[in-house]
């Protein structure tokens, strides 16, 4: 799929179809994560007790009038399944495109790995329904964001930029320091660990000790502080040191997302556990939390989805940073 434009731009390997599928996969997985979050918020995971069928129907043939206009939890769970199936189909398309159109052997196997992961994630979701097992739900909830981050990274791996990372950079700063690449990769790992901690707090059960919960909350808060410092350091590094805009842009986005996430985290605490110090705010001092209320659900799900977005942004920034650095080291940039 090397058209004349690609040839002109020095990236004959670029395939619009492969890249489109990778980006499409990322675009589909993000709402899938939102809906998945709603499944947990509304405890809708067991709204459909069978899997892969839906109340005995083939899930694609299940009448739309039943689930679209039926109980909310049924709609949430069934749309989660349909979106998941769509992402699975796109992942299959990506494998086919990779094997037909991409010349990089490692990328072909990357695409296969991605497909296997989405299949595993689907099976985990099914097992969660069949066994109604909270540990499986937690793993399912943590694999989803990892897949999202990998899908977003695949978008970079298949982009025109990947094949010509220094295009148009002549005369500008062309160096990404190793430190920047390490910091953003560290942020990716840390943000994912933070997400796992968050999953622990979200899937809390009555038999956890209050010491464990307190430890988890404190760890989550400490990690949030660490992440905030990390993104600020990364922002300063990419802002003041010679770098490339394609990395800086993502790091700045990461900064904004982490700040937003901290605000959402505080709001999540309030809508779950009330204001810790009632004298702080008169309105919130009189606020009665409503289980599964609209605002409450929106806040909690947004916090969860933003966590996934942070991991994805950090993954994209990391891949870009390391790629550029590798290309520079190979001497492909003057």
């Amino acid at each position, binding site marked *: 799929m090397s058209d004349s434009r690609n040839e002109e731009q020095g990236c004959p390997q670029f395939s619009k179809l492969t890249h489109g599928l990778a980006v499409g996969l990322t675009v589909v997985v993000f709402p899938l994560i939102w809906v998945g979050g709603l499944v947990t918020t509304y*405890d809708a995971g*067991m709204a459909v007790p069978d899997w892969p069928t839906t109340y005995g129907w083939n899930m694609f043939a299940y009448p739309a009038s039943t689930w679209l206009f039926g109980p909310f939890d049924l709609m949430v769970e069934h749309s989660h399944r349909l979106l998941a199936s769509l992402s699975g189909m796109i992942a299959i398309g990506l494998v086919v495109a990779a094997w037909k159109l991409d010349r990089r052997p490692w990328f072909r196997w990357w695409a296969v790995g991605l497909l296997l992961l989405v299949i595993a994630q689907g099976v985990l979701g099914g097992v969660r329904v069949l066994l*109604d*097992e*909270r*540990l499986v739900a*937690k*793993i399912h909830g*943590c694999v989803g964001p*990892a897949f999202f981050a990998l899908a977003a990274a695949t978008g970079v791996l298949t982009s025109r930029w990947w094949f010509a990372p220094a295009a148009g950079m002549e005369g500008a700063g062309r160096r990404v320091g190793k430190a920047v690449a390490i910091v953003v*990769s*560290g942020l*990716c*790992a*840390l943000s*994912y*660990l933070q997400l*796992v*901690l968050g*999953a*622990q707090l979200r899937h*809390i*059960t*009555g*038999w*956890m*000790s*209050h*010491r*464990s*919960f*307190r430890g*988890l*909350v404190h760890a989550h808060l400490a990690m949030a502080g660490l992440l905030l410092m990390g993104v600020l350091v990364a922002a300063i590094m990419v802002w003041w040191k010679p770098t490339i805009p394609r990395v800086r842009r993502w790091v700045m986005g990461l900064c904004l997302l982490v700040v937003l996430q901290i605000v959402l985290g505080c709001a999540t605490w309030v809508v*779950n*556990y*009330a*204001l*810790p*110090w*009632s*004298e702080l705010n*008169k*309105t*919130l*001092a*009189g*606020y*009665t*939390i*409503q*289980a*599964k*209320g609209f605002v409450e659900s929106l806040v909690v799900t947004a916090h969860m989805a933003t966590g996934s977005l942070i991991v994805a942004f950090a993954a994209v920034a990391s891949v870009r940073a390391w790629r550029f650095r590798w290309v520079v080291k190979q001497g492909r940039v003057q």
Partner: protein
Amino acid sequence: MAWIAGAAGVALLAGCERTAPTAAVQFEPNWVYAYQIGQRSEQSMDQALVEVESALEELFGTPDVPKWPAVLTEDEEYADLVSMEHLMAASGNPSEPGRGLFRKHCAVCHGITGNGRGPTAALLNPYPRDFRLGKFKFKSTPIGSKPTKDDLFHTIQTGIPGTTMVKIPELTEQDIAALVDYVIYLSIRGQVERSLLFEAGELVYADGESLYDPSLKETDPEAFEEQWEIIEDYVLDEADAWVEAEDRVKEVPERDRAVVPDTTEELLARIAQGDSTILASIERGRELFLSEKASCSKCHGKEGRGDGQTNDYDDWAKEWTKKFGLDPEDEASQIPLIARGALPVRKVAPRNFEEGVFRGGSTPEALYQRIWLGIEGTPMPAAAVDPQDIWDLVNYVRSLYKPQAAGTNTSTSDQVAANARR
């Protein structure tokens, strides 16, 4: 690095799930009380704990398979107290159809045992209620009496503003009724546990005395019968208190709506209009509030900002500190008890009326009840004033509300004072 993070993530996921949800869930013994009784009686409570927990299991079953003591099912007087159908719906694992209401909605804060020490408890303010003390704040009965089922129903149905006590619209009336029964069940179980531990502390185990020895059933049925009767007497005592609650309800006298408006907003509007009836009532309320007789200002402060005497504790804190001669201020002396599960004590914060938040309800009737009957387990006593004068106090405390959005620090009570000056 990502792989390390992934591996650590998996370890984290698995690590905190120490007790599988499918494993048998147990009630947690009252370690704190047992420790204190042991200290007082200067003997090990190990054997006592084994016997007490064994007797409790015989009486009340387990969180998965609850029982209602036979001595209560045999007597018609207790027939309406708790239904087995409700206990089954509220107990057990939520993954089983028609079960697990308590574990799904309540245990995360109140704990499986209802000891107010669920996973989230230590970080909440106020702490979740420990049902085992048998005390409940918001009720229609006087201090010293149990709440009615309606009182508990109302609290579960509406939630409590400014706290983690959440309102759960998905609960049906049947669900709430099941939870009410389960709360009573946990409360009675917890109180019987305390009574039995206290009784065990009076025995001398070194001399072969025993509170509950099932092996006696075979070897000495008469002695066993005697032990069991004592245990059942404690159950009956607690159940009696709950049954009597309905007869102890204090009906709030009807109010004159012209003097006591339905809502704070209506009250504020009438103050703004200079309604002389309302202003006079508020002034009478203010005088009472500041008087020695009602002593409201002692804790709530002269201006009702909750800044009076603020160095007191509630009964849930005093129960394991002052009652056993520990100074709540002395943190070091509490370490052995905190290690056994007690939550660090916190001082009680008297209500700041400027916030306009009333946890037991904002209706005039609810406020009347709080003032008239006091708030169980807290330093808030029943007001020693004429019942009719309480409506004036209700008006006064509502008039202290300072709406935040108004962007002014002038409370309606200031307006009342201004009107009085005119």
